[in-house]
């Protein structure tokens, strides 16, 4: 493997991790929305 491969791995890892974190935040948001709907009933 060359240095450019490692460069690609590093920046891919950053974006993949951030993507999963944003997905987790999105899930939290929809869970909160559901709870608010439940409380309004």
């Amino acid at each position, binding site marked *: 493997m060359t240095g450019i491969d490692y*460069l690609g791995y590093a920046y891919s890892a950053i974006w993949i991790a951030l993507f999963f974190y944003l997905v987790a935040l999105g899930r939290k948001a929809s869970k909160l929305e559901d709870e608010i709907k439940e*409380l309004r009933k």
Partner: protein
Amino acid sequence: MLAALLMIFFVVPNEKIQGVAQRIFYFHVHLAWMAFGGFVFVAATSAWYLRTGSARADQLAHANAEVGLVFTTLVLITGAIWARPIWGVWWTWDPRLTMTVVLWAIYAAYLMLRRLGQGDETITRYAAVLGIVGVLDIPILVLAIRLWRGIHPAVVISEDPEAGLKDPTMIWTFVISGIALALLFTWLVSLRARFAAIDDAVETLHLEKENQ
């Protein structure tokens, strides 16, 4: 962010000693600085929470700890990927690396404690104390290179005339990457803090409904 990535991949020249792999540092260093800043903020807002009991302070501490932990995880991952072509190993127990793992563990414990406490005030206060004590790891981590002569390089300012950020393009890339990651960190913290505020409001509504 796009400008930072374009500069890292297409504009900035290779560093003479480390070659292409050095470009990992344009994000790696700022990820670390943002995480450290976040943990300092955790300590400050935790102290504010312990003093006043402010819910806002607690929400900000929680948000900064969580995003700081994500950034520290990325520091460890990108550091390992950089280390493989430069040191020939993915990991070594260098003082700075070891102290970074300790920092990661402290704030992972902080978040676990909060999660287990489920809003219990006593546990939230214990977590706040941990958030304050944990920040003491940062000066040790920063000074680790000088204190124990580790092998982690000094990236920005180096005594080696051939190493470090010598080219003006390198300095600009470093500055632009820093601004991009600072904005990303701030956005993520504000998003997470907003969720924490809504979470607290929902919790209060649940309690009010139960008491009715």
